[in-house]
């Protein structure tokens, strides 16, 4: 039964050409992130920190098309760093933050949600109280306060972002999975498992959670987008990453450059981020369509 549902979802998804293209784009981004991690760009002499402009006294921007900069496809910033390389390095931070946040959020949200929904009672009250409390604080405000406090302990950087995001992003998944678990609790196959004397934790793990996996997939994708967008905003506000390259930092720097009509940095950061988020949005839609067609 479950196998059939999976197969149908797969068929529906793979017929959606846009969705397959979007998935391809996401895969390319993940590969670039992996290359950055493995030091491929450093190895070919492209560091996001090191100025590549040979002419040391040149502090001006190089725009593509000018003779000195034929090797920097998207020009350089004020410090002479290649904008293309910085935009590529930013992918690493974006994908890392998205991956870690989405994984932890879905894992924690599913476990807590399924447990709360299945057992009810005190555990349920506690979990509902926890996510209601977190959700009643505006998320950007909570993220900012969290990254400020976490930053004092872990230093401003990607670890702080992980801590802040993982602490907040699980609530949406948890709410939805809990609702589904309450619905499944009375289903016949769960009642049958109960009658067979299977211990409750096993029922949650083997029967409840696998039957909520369609929601987990959709939410993984949604949290991924949310984390990428939030990382850019926090880095822009100087509460996010510092040493690494981030589209948020690029946009922040680009504000001053606009005054001298230099658009390449903001353009590159916007375009790189736009393509990834767009691909993820299309992918999520298709996923939702294939797995959970009833949802609004």
């Amino acid at each position, binding site marked *: 039964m479950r196998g059939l549902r999976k197969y149908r979802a797969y068929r529906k998804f793979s017929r959606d050409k846009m969705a397959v293209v979007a998935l391809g784009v996401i895969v390319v981004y993940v590969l670039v992130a992996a290359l950055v991690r493995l030091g491929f760009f450093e190895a070919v002499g492209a560091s996001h920190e090191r100025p590549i402009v040979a002419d040391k006294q040149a502090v001006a921007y190089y725009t593509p098309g000018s003779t000195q900069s034929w090797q920097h496809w998207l020009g350089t910033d004020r410090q002479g760093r290649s904008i293309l390389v910085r935009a590529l390095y930013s992918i690493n931070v974006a994908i890392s933050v998205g991956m870690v946040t989405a994984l932890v959020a879905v894992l924690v949200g599913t476990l807590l949600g399924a447990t709360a929904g299945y057992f009810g009672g005190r555990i349920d009250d506690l979990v509902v109280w926890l996510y209601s409390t977190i959700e009643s604080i505006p998320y*950007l405000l909570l993220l900012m306060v969290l990254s400020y406090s976490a930053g004092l302990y872990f230093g401003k950087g990607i670890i702080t972002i992980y801590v802040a995001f993982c602490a907040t992003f699980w609530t949406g998944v948890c709410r939805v999975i809990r609702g589904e678990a309450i619905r499944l609790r009375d289903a016949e196959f769960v009642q049958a498992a109960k009658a067979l004397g299977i211990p409750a934790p096993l029922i949650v793990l083997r029967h409840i959670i696998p039957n909520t996996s369609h929601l987990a997939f959709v939410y993984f994708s949604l949290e991924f987008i949310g984390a990428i967008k939030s990382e850019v905003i926090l880095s822009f506000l100087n509460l996010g990453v510092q040493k690494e390259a981030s589209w948020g930092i690029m946009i922040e720097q680009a504000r001053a450059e606009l005054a001298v009509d230099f658009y390449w940095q903001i353009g590159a950061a916007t375009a790189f981020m736009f393509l990834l988020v*767009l691909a993820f949005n299309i992918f999520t839609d298709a996923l939702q369509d294939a797995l959970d067609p009833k949802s*609004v």
Partner: protein
Amino acid sequence: MGAYVIRRLLQGVPILIGVTLITFTLLNVFGGDPVVARLGKSSTLEDQAALRAEYGLDKPLWQQYFRYLQEISTFDFGRSFVTRESVRDILASGAGPSLSITMPALLLTTLISITLGMISAFNRGKAIDRAIVVLAVMGMSVSFLVYIVAGQYFVAFKTGWFQIYGYESGLVERWQYLYLPILIQVIVGVGYDVRFYRAVMVDESTKLYIVTAYAKGLPRWKVMFKHMLKNALIPIITRVMIAVPFLVTGSLLIESFFGIPGLGHRMLAAIDEQDYPVIKAFTFVISSLFIAGNIVTDLLYAAADPRVRLR
């Protein structure tokens, strides 16, 4: 209904206590020492001790927490670390500018989104539907920051149509500063909302009462506005009411980058300056509004749909 409201309000109390616990833990327990940050590292120990005593930071944590609860329950949130203003005054003076942006923005966003969502749903699969959906997805995929930075530079600075930065408190004068922030807010909001309302309307349009309405020969506009809109009211109310508590607080990013002295701006500054009393009071007020908003939403459900019973 009175009993229902009272019970819901009581249910909100543990959540509010949770909110105070979170902010208190994050700031008073794990946050840095605001006193040294305020007075500077070269300040004398006596000065530091005096300021610490004034804000009760020399007491044990549990006493600090009870002082915080006491402040909240009397709606006297103490004074700002930075400006020494009473936090209540900050809240009162910031709400106006924030509301001037968020209220028109929410109204416009909702009207435009519902209209586009209906157009899309009624032409499902046709070119206009696809265009609306594609534009909405693309709009959602651009970072909020880019709208602000690009809007400020290309639209306000280059064309000179709008003020770039600033605010005047006069009821008429303020608008010249608000057009662009409102416009940006609406563009961002419509991207998200159109798809939601389209899905609601598509869902509604497959129901049998719509078929009946067409079968008895009603014109399309009548089906759209009289039958469908009324039945789609519940999701619309939910969507709008989620945004209402946050109207007062405005947008952190928009306000600070357009220099509008609303609560969002004050909040961002407070985080920057470690102004703990402001951060704590602010979080508490928004969360209270959020909980109140949830209760009002449920009351509106019952008003909009006779099938809904308040339990």
